[in-house]
């Protein structure tokens, strides 16, 4: 199996509604990634695309719709899909295209435009629920998150304030991200006391509706050695899905995320993740999810991520801990679903290269991890990058 390097990353702004179409956003992100990799589209052997449900854009077969903007014309082109986990699964799929030895390079593009759905993209989520047992009850997307958060809080005795701290950190971090949609300085009280959407979830604990795109360029070792001077390698990948019977699952602990993480750690030769992972971008569509995921990733004991967060262990300027979501995450930068996952991969890439600007973490980082999550709360996707 060949080694695979990341040569460049590109991002658009993340905004509530973009003037650019999905195709145009794809092109902006892809062009930026190619420029950073010092390559042109002629150097690209294949393309992997990720975008979450078609229903948002209202365009069926969205992969094909986006193809031209993503550089897919005349090339092996594949859309991959594991719901919200797609943004990190896309570079995993890109990795095996290149690691197989079949392709020298792969352009990975992720796009989401949630704004076209009227009156609100939340309506498009209803069709993920079971049509016999769940939809007739009048479901909405917030239900599953609030149900899971309640189970997590009551299992471990975690107060709402401890959950809200994730939004304080991530929205503050996001202020320094050029793509940022919702960065800012908030107090724990402001997060907790914002409008109750579905208790225990309040409005400022929810990531926004966003349009945006992201891209990365992957290359084989042989190709990479001729290009960049500071190489970032894909050291580990892992993914796993749990049962779709979500009401039969342990909602307090994401075991499928642990399985995905262990798969990636094993591949990277990591035996003690808390020592060997130096920066992390766990998936944070809701406040509690970042904590849930840090535990599933074995970067905290079960139920103990909130205490570590309070101690500053996950702060961007920590020297002894593991900075978590230094980008500002989905809660701060924004959540164009598939593009948000790939934004996290781009952040780890820039952090390891020392190119994260004002967001650059203080501790020396040689290895970082990005993780996404989704489908019906059942998929974990994990990628580990290292220098």
């Amino acid at each position, binding site marked *: 199996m060949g080694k695979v390097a990341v040569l460049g990353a590109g991002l658009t702004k993340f905004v509530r509604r973009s003037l650019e179409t999905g195709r145009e956003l794809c092109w902006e992100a892809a062009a930026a990634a190619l420029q950073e990799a010092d390559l042109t589209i002629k150097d690209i052997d294949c393309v992997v695309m990720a975008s979450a449900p078609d229903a948002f854009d209202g365009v069926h077969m969205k992969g094909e719709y986006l193809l031209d903007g993503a550089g897919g014309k005349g090339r092996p082109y594949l859309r991959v899909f594991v719901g919200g986990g797609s943004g990190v699964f896309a570079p995993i799929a890109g990795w095996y295209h290149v690691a197989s030895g079949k392709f020298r390079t792969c352009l990975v593009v992720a796009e989401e435009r949630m704004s076209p759905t009227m009156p609100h993209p939340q309506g498009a989520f209803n069709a993920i629920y079971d049509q016999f047992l769940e939809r007739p009850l009048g479901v909405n997307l917030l239900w599953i998150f609030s149900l899971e958060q309640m189970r997590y809080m009551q299992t471990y005795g975690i107060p709402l304030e401890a959950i809200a701290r994730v939004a304080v950190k991530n929205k503050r971090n996001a202020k320094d991200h050029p793509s940022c949609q919702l960065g800012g300085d908030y107090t724990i009280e402001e997060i907790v006391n914002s409008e109750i959407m579905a208790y225990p979830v309040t409005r400022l604990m929810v990531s926004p509706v966003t349009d945006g795109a992201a891209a990365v360029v992957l290359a084989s070792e042989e190709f990479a050695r001729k290009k960049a001077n500071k190489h970032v390698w894909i050291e580990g990948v892992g993914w796993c899905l749990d049962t779709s019977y979500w*009401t039969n699952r342990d909602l307090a602990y994401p075991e499928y995320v642990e399985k995905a993480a262990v798969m990636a750690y094993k591949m990277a030769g990591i035996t003690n993740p808390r020592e060997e992972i130096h920066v992390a971008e766990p998936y944070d569509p809701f406040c509690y999810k970042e904590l849930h995921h840090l535990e599933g990733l074995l970067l905290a004991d079960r139920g103990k991520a909130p205490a570590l967060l309070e101690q500053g262990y996950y702060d961007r300027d920590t020297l002894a801990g593991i900075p978590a979501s230094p980008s500002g995450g989905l809660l701060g930068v924004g959540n164009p679903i598939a593009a948000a996952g790939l934004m996290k991969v781009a952040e780890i890439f820039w952090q390891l290269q020392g190119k994260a600007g004002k967001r650059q973490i203080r501790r020396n980082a040689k290895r970082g991890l990005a993780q996404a999550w989704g489908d019906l709360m059942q998929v974990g996707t994990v990628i580990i990058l290292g220098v």
Partner: protein
Amino acid sequence: MSMSSMSLNFRGTPLREDDLRTGKALTTEWRGRIDYNWDAGVAIGQFLEGLKAGKLLGRKCRGCGRIMIPPRMFCEKCFRRSDEWVELKDTGRVNTFSISYVNWDASRRTTPQVPAVIEIDGASPGMGIMHLLGEVGDSVDEILKRVRIGSRVQAVWKPPQEREGAITDIRYFRPLSE
């Protein structure tokens, strides 16, 4: 090269709602309407028949011994055909719940809905279904006083003549005094 002033990174043009209203950004609209008709299938078909008769039905796998609800004709764990129907109780315990003020279209409600995962008595531990809780109050404070994880609840059924073989044949689950 990245982050230089010539970088192509971080481009894009945010629109405001006004830009659409005033026609500054041109738009086009499509109202999709697609109708579907699903048959309930083998397992859920039987389950819905059970609801019509006022019963909750589970399905047992003799491989792992689990009694499963929602029922399925196969066991995803053993990956073998499941074996028999088991009548469960219409009581259970709250696995988790929430208090929702938002409708599917993001419009707001004044009276909240209380969705819950309910572990059904007679099924294996951890086997729950989603449904609504009722008779638990109209505000967060009231509801948190009356419900907690582990609370015992019982189904409140529609009268037999109103049942149609749907999950809504159970109106909601209400708290049982212990």
